[in-house]
């Protein structure tokens, strides 16, 4: 008998229980309840987010597969497609940083190769509490080495990403992992169980008791007793996954299977019911045939285990032996555990007895969707909130301080732990505006950028989300790529709090608006709610992963200054905007004000123009302005140049110098061009309706900025470089 307490333990409401009873026509047994519990969890069922996600544009001429599958698919021409998605692994990474992050990588890789694509790149978006706290450092070390431990071993390069620090992530770090895969268009596979009589094969690791109710855990807040949840986190085995990857791609390449699905959240339960539901079929499974790591597991445990590195395959009876032969080559067993049947029911037996008999449609497609109440917070941040700020006495000092702030500082400490070069496609090393990968056998290249400034989204979720889309696109454009598709990872607090729901709605609206404006479809993503620990929610953190295509990799543009004597041109307009900036956070200790404005039309014109100018061969380097504003962007251009060339810049704007140097006004890019091309470049910008101003020259050993002739600061490139370069490693030096 199912009582209230059992329901609570399974995260189901009494109303939901009523629905279940209605759908299956009787009271479920405990195993069946467990199945509904995970499949109807927030993590798997998207019950609070579904009504809002419908607002996102998902159509486009290149879209082969939009949301609803393991990953989105876009056609890139020449018979090839790209397959990509981003996923969160926040909750597990807080409980056990190394394994939480490692299995996050493992999971997203399976999402990609399940569809027939070879994963060619991983990027991750990480959020931690400030690194001066040893607890945060230890979480960060664990997460970074977990990503490295898994990705390096399996041989998929981690080519970029971003790391932000903010106290709101002290007890709730974010680990969002993006993966990009490449496949032949005629060899895409789906998670469909079709054809009655076809066999269901289980491949990969044995099933253990790890990760039971992981999906349910990811659908609740954390309290002080979280430590007890450690057994809910799975343990990754990248070597097993590597074998699985090669074997799966081989059986797919040889056309030996009908459908395939990875066992991720909710393991065997999710994969069997989803495959059956998508094929419009039923499925029978004999749990005694499921390879088990330990004795005495109950059907409940076998079905809900989230042991890693497992896949489910459907193959016609005559091809079973051929499939098993490929897996044997890779030292993997592939036992038949069930069959596809007519009738739309999942019938699962254990020791000769039917333990589950439920309609798959109810489990997979009929999870209730909620339009949860939302309410704007009582006190809205607005420009009036920004108190009068004193001007800093020494701009050089602030400049160096910003360069050394962990969010802005160089991230080599992180990315040199990742193998970012394996597969020999990495054309740009991490640290450029976007990651750039060549496609072997073609002139084309793929660019990827992840972006999301949660300070902006906290102050104004809608504008923040619009900025995130715009900035990720701008990053791609800065290397010369045209954005083609979006995946998103939406990290928010508890959706049962109306203020959190409001943030979510606003952010989705902003994202939808921006994606429409840029004409780029959202092909999938992930929602992570309940990022609350001890009652405190994180800043709303939508992370955008945007992919772009560059037709000719030889035309790719880098951020660093190329040579001495080039003209430095600022595209876009400087404005007096300090709200939400890293500068007021670091120097004035404020997370306040309105984030910078985002005019999507202006942004679009800027990006179109830059691509045009690059096509005409007028652009030698390009770098977008982000955290830290103009001064930090100039410094990064100097650092990324081969010879660490400096620059002399003079600005004519008349407003307060700190806003000019460190404000984060959007839609701005620093470009350099040969002096001989400057006139043509500026004319072209004027014709494109894009403000462009020649602000100085590259050269010398200093970065110097003047305002109407008055020098605001002059700092040797080397000194600035050291501040930027050493900041992060200094936190991790062994202290005696």
């Amino acid at each position: 008998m199912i009582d209230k307490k059992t329901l609570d333990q399974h995260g189901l409401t009494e109303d939901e229980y009523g629905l279940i009873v209605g759908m299956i026509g009787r009271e479920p047994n405990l195993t069946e309840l467990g199945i509904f519990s995970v499949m109807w969890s927030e993590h798997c069922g998207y019950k609070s987010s579904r009504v809002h996600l419908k607002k996102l544009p998902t159509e486009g001429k290149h879209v082969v597969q939009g949301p609803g599958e393991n990953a989105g698919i876009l056609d890139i021409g020449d018979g090839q497609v790209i397959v990509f998605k981003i996923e969160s692994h926040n909750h597990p990474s807080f409980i056990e940083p190394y394994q939480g992050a490692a299995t996050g990588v493992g999971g997203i890789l399976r999402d990609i190769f399940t569809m027939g694509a070879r994963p060619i790149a991983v990027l991750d978006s990480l959020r931690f509490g400030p690194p001066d706290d040893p607890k945060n450092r230890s979480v960060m070390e664990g997460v970074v080495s977990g990503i490295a431990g898994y990705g390096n071993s399996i041989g998929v390069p981690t080519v970029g990403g971003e790391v932000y620090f903010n106290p709101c992530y002290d007890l709730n770090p974010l680990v969002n992992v993006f993966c990009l895969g490449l496949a032949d268009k005629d060899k895409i596979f789906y998670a469909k169980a079709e054809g009655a009589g076809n066999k269901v094969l289980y491949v990969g690791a044995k099933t253990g008791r790890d990760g039971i109710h992981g999906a349910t855990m990811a659908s609740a807040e954390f309290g002080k007793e979280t430590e007890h949840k450690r057994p809910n986190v799975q343990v990754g085995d990248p070597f097993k996954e590597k074998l699985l990857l090669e074997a799966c791609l081989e059986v797919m390449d040889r056309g030996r299977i009908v459908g395939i699905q990875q066992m991720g959240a909710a393991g065997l339960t999710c994969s069997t019911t989803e495959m059956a539901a998508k094929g419009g079929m039923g499925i029978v499974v004999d749990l005694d045939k499921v390879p088990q790591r330990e004795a005495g597991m109950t059907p409940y445990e076998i079905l809900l285990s989230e042991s890693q590195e497992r896949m489910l395959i459907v193959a016609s009876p005559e091809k079973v032996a051929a499939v098993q032969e490929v897996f044997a080559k890779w030292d993997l067993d592939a036992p038949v555990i069930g069959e596809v049947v007519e009738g739309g029911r999942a019938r699962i037996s254990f020791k000769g007895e039917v333990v589950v008999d439920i309609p798959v449609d109810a489990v997979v497609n009929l999870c209730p969707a909620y339009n949860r109440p939302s309410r704007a917070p009582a006190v809205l941040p607005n420009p009036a909130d920004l108190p009068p700020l004193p001007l800093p006495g020494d701009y050089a000092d602030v400049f160096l301080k910003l360069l050394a702030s962990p969010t802005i500082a160089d991230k080599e400490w992180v990315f040199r732990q990742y193998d970012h070069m394996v597969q020999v496609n990495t054309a740009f090393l991490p640290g450029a505006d976007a990651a750039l990968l060549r496609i072997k056998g073609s002139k084309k290249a793929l660019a990827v950028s992840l972006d999301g400034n949660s300070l902006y989204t906290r102050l104004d979720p809608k504008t923040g989300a619009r900025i995130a889309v715009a900035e990720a696109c701008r990053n791609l454009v800065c290397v010369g790529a045209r954005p083609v598709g979006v995946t998103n990872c939406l990290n928010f607090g508890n959706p049962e709090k109306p203020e959190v729901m409001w943030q979510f709605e606003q952010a989705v609206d902003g994202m939808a608006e921006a994606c429409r404006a840029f004409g780029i479809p959202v092909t999938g993503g992930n929602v992570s709610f309940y990022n609350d620990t001890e009652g405190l929610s994180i800043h709303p953190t939508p992370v955008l992963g945007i992919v772009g295509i560059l037709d000719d990799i030889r035309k790719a543009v880098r951020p660093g200054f190329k040579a001495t004597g080039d003209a430095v041109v600022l595209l876009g307009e400087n404005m007096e905007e300090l709200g939400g900036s890293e500068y007021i956070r670091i120097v004035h200790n404020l997370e306040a004000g309105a984030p910078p404005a985002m005019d999507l039309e202006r942004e679009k014109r800027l990006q179109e123009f830059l691509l045009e100018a690059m096509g005409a061969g007028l652009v030698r380097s390009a770098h977008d302005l982000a955290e830290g504003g103009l001064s930090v962007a100039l410094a990064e251009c100097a650092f990324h140049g081969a010879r660490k060339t400096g620059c002399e810049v003079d600005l004519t704007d008349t407003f307060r110098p700190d806003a000019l140097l460190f404000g984060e006004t959007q839609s701005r890019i620093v470009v350099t061009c040969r002096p001989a091309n400057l006139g043509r470049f500026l004319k072209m910008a004027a014709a494109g309706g894009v403000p462009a101003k020649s602000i100085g020259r590259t050269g010398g050993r200093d970065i110097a900025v003047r305002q109407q002739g008055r020098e605001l600061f002059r700092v040797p490139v080397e000194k600035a470089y050291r501040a930027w370069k050493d900041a992060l490693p200094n936190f991790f030096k062994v202290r005696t």
Partner: protein
Amino acid sequence: MKFGVVQFPGSNCDFDTFHVLRNVMKRETALLWHKDHDLQGVDCVVLPGGFSYGDYLRSGAIARFSPLMQEVKAFARAGGHVLGICNGFQILLELGLLPGAMIRNKNLKFLCQHVRIRIENEKTDFTRAGRKGQVLRIPIAHFDGNYYAPARVLKDIERHRQVVFRYCDAEGNITEEANVNGSLGNIAGIRNREGNVLGLMPHPERASEALLGSEDGRTIFASLILSLERRKPARRPVRRERARHD
């Protein structure tokens, strides 16, 4: 000449090495499966980088027992050329074809970055296309690349000029700072006394195309081609399937 790239379970630079040898160096190249006993008549065996058997024991400790490795051992003993890159170097150490051992990097972290190595001995079949003292810019990517050997062994390999590459700075100076993983004597690569087996930690296949930032790694492959094709009548180079690289 014909190269053979061995695939162990967990190898992950097998396709990269194959790609460079076939499409960049334009030489016939075969993939050799670890369970086979057939070296397919190759002139040079390359053990690629990766995490053979997950490196769950010591790096390379299990791969050395693969059926194919018994053939590789016999091939090397008979004077056949064997190149071990990264995990391949670790396997050669475990197999006893090269002296010494690898321990964890001195900072106890995985390191992936461009480094510079200096050619210490240009009179080997793996370096003859280079110059003595030439500095090559080639990336490393490893956790266990900290070369160790007992003093007596170290002295021995120095005396027989077996050290082929050392970590150095941009000017070719052998410095502590350039020695990122902490290797004894800044050792990045060594050969056996007979000169037909070489292991190195840096990945020359990642530095063989201008598009990826360096072509210095080609020196090693070009040297092998030079050495081995001089010795026997050249085979016809393989036909390019498509433009596989820029």
